[in-house]
């Protein structure tokens, strides 16, 4: 019963998020609304972590599995990959290095400023 209840809570959050997403005047992923919604519920104490712990461990621990069907649908787009695969790979590599560098430098800089102010 405990697991059923937890599934119920999480699916209700997702269902309400879907409804909210329908009513928003702009496109916003319902899954992200669910994440913000669940976070606020935890923060305000409406939900306690014990209410969803096991189900959430199950979902987070097996996250990668849920992407399998989305990935398999790549077989409908082989032509697209054949024509653009190299470009897409280059984009991934270059932007990964840029993202890493920019994040690391901006955080180091912020940390230095914070430390200086403390002194």
């Amino acid at each position, binding site marked *: 019963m405990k697991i059923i209840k937890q599934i119920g809570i999480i699916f209700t959050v997702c269902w309400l998020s879907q409804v909210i997403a329908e009513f928003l005047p702009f496109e916003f992923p319902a899954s992200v609304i669910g994440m913000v919604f*669940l976070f606020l519920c935890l923060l305000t104490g409406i939900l306690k972590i014990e209410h969803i712990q096991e189900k959430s461990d199950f979902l987070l621990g097996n996250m990668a599995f849920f992407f*399998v069907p989305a990935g*398999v649908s790549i077989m409908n787009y082989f032509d697209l990959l054949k024509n653009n695969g190299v470009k897409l790979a280059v984009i991934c590599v270059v932007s990964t290095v840029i993202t890493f560098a920019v994040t690391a430098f901006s*955080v180091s800089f912020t940390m230095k400023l914070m430390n200086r102010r403390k002194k």
Partner: protein
Amino acid sequence: MEALYTSPYFGVALSVIMFGIGVKIQQKTKSALCNPLIIAIVLIVGVLLIFKIPYDSYNVGGEIINMFLAPATACLAVSIYTKLSILKKYWLPIIVGCIAGSLASMVSVYGMCRLFGLDESLTMSMLPKSVTTPIAIGVAQAHGGVVPVTVVAVIFTGILGSITAPLLIKLFRVSDSVAAGLAIGACSHAVGTSKAIQIGEVEGAMSGLAIGICGIVTVLFSMLI
């Protein structure tokens, strides 16, 4: 013959079995290159092509697995909530880093897509490639991207980030573990985080926080385009 693959059980069972094989292979080789998700996708596509099973038949079961994507994304909130104390302590560098990192990722991807002359739908598929898969799928869907291209780009980026993380830390002389952790999480989401956890406790926690926060930031920025 068709009776073998017309029920939803077929797609679910095939996915579970192939993913299980992927996990076993990764446990044996302990290599980031042997990503269970990639192995499962390759094996399933192989089976469908060899036995000439239509994708739509597989996807009857696939749809059921897809249904768990939104709940899994929502649960990222739990992983942020459990790190609330370090989030409070380092909120400024975390926010600055996630905004700067997400912007750097999106701007560089957008610029290169334009440079290479890729069309609108491919650009939108690539744009969220540094964030965790469920959020990236949401962004791609909302802006007319090709979701499977997004999935492949996200996984590829994740593997890339987790392999090159130690190298990048040395290359850019990142001495601060908060900076290193956030940088890993910002560019290579959950796959990179598993590497960050091995590098250190602070790195792991920061990388984990960056997954959800960069996700939200990326969603917000993508609305401006």
